[in-house]
């Protein structure tokens, strides 16, 4: 029973980490809290859904949806955040309000275009559940999520640590001015953040759609704020911290709601943990240190 709950928590937590990773990468470079990342999650889930029902090819749905949503992310930066941040004397709250506006806009646009109703996400995975011992069953959707999340994080780790682009990303996140001064292409580091950030959010959206076998235009509401809690717990802008914080929130949510009861709704647990931890340690659970 306990082991089953722990596995459950890890699955949920890895989806959280994947969703929050985009916001972390974008914060790392731009120093803005991008709630609209949760909009990318909805858009990605819908793009993936339509590709899957027309072609029946799940890997294609994942890849195309991630690519398209990532491209949207770059456009959002070029047309919106870039020009806003380029203005002098900008209040720190302005980009945050922009992203809230953008999130509202995308959620409702999806509702108008695709309809407000719930759509069933019946994905054929081609493999069955795995039985561990007597009582523990790992459903095929869980295997998909675990494996895919692990692969995506490995790719991210590889890009950040083994490529020039990743080095540029880290330099820009650490000291944007100096990075620019020594000739690092900070624009490509920024574009990388948006492509990977929005792309990961899209993948997370599809995974959640498959996990709960449904998508609605309101899919992004819970992740929009839970993501914030996770990126702060992870030390704002720290990719490794985000993975730890995502798993931590997923596990504590699952275990608290099962073993302590439902005095407090599950979705606010992340924030209670967050407020407590911030009061004790104002710089987040994982202190800021890249890679």
């Amino acid at each position: 029973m306990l082991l089953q709950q722990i596995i459950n928590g890890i699955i949920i937590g890895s989806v959280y980490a994947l969703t929050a990773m985009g916001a972390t990468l974008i914060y790392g470079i731009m120093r803005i809290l991008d709630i609209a990342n949760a909009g990318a999650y909805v858009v990605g889930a819908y793009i993936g859904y339509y590709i899957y029902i027309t072609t029946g090819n799940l890997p294609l749905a994942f890849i195309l949806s991630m690519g398209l949503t990532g491209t949207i992310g770059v456009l959002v930066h070029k047309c919106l955040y870039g020009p806003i941040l380029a203005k002098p004397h900008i209040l720190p709250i302005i980009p945050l309000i922009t992203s809230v506006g953008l999130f509202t806009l995308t959620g409702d646009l999806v509702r108008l275009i695709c309809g407000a109703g719930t759509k069933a996400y019946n994905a054929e995975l081609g493999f069955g559940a795995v039985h561990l011992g007597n009582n523990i069953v790992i459903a095929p959707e869980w295997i998909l999520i675990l494996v895919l999340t692990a692969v995506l994080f490995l790719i991210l780790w590889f890009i950040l640590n083994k490529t020039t682009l990743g080095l540029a990303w880290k330099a820009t996140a650490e000291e944007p001015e100096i990075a620019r001064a020594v000739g690092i292409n900070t624009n490509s580091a920024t574009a990388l953040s948006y492509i990977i950030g929005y792309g990961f959010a899209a993948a997370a959206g599809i995974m959640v759609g498959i996990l709960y076998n449904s998508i609605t235009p309101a899919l992004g509401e819970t992740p929009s704020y839970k993501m914030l809690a996770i990126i702060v717990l992870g030390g704002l802008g720290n990719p490794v911290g985000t993975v730890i914080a995502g798993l931590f929130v997923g596990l504590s949510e699952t275990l608290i709601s099962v073993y302590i009861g439902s005095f407090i709704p599950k979705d606010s647990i992340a924030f209670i943990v967050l407020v407590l931890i911030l009061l004790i340690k104002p710089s987040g659970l994982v202190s800021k240190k890249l890679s």
Partner: protein
Amino acid sequence: MSYIITVAVNIAIFALLALSLNIITGYAGQSAMGHAAFFGIGAYTAALMTNAGISFWLSLPAAMLVTAAAGGLLGVISLRVRDDFLAITTIGINFVMVALFQNMKIFGASLGMSVTPPTFFGAKMTPMHFLVLLLILIVLTCLLTRKMTKSWFGLALASLRNDEGAAMSFGINVSQYKILAFILGTAIAGLTGAIYVHRMTFIFSSSFAFTVSISILSMVVVGGIGTIRGPLLGALILGAAPEVLRFAADYRMILYGGILVLMMRFQPQGLLGCDSFILRGLHKLFPKDKAGEMNG
């Protein structure tokens, strides 16, 4: 007519909320994103009091006091948790408060809370009475804010908003003024909540959700942050929008989101903020008109 008064009361409530948030966000420059939580604390405090048989008129200052205490606590927190962390902490506080309202028996849990309509000299208060009360409070808040900006307190807030380190090095007690701004702003929000619950006679936790905080903040920013006229205009525009745009009900949230995005992209100082395109136009028409209050 009664429809117009109902809408006007609604706008007036949001105008007060926007003005009160403006003290914290506009003048003190603190990223407070959970203002609806304090609106809710005031509302639930007042509801609990009048349900215990205490007069509506006594519940108003009491709600103010309780909310101000909570706001002062947030002020103390803001000394330690800053900027983006503060924004997220306040969002978190908003969610936690709504969860408490929704789950604790004393707050009516998921059933919400109802109160008996208050009386004024023995007669039941009509929407018109509420509107007059709110308008008086709006005028008082504007006067208070104006007095504040002209005082030592206002100057200190301007200095800490522009450069906290520099303000400190000049011997300004930054912490004290920050906490004071939080107390003032949240107290007015609590008072508004107390009036709101008696106007509606019924409240749910969802009336104080994070989206409400965003609406309040949008009003401040769309109108012009750090000015008195800005939040008033913002509350008027965004408060009336759902009614005016009723014909386009299906596109309302798109328009709302779109307006926010476009405003932030092209006019982040707000419609009536310092150096907005409207003010620049007015300056050309009336060259002697004074510039905004934001430059401090």
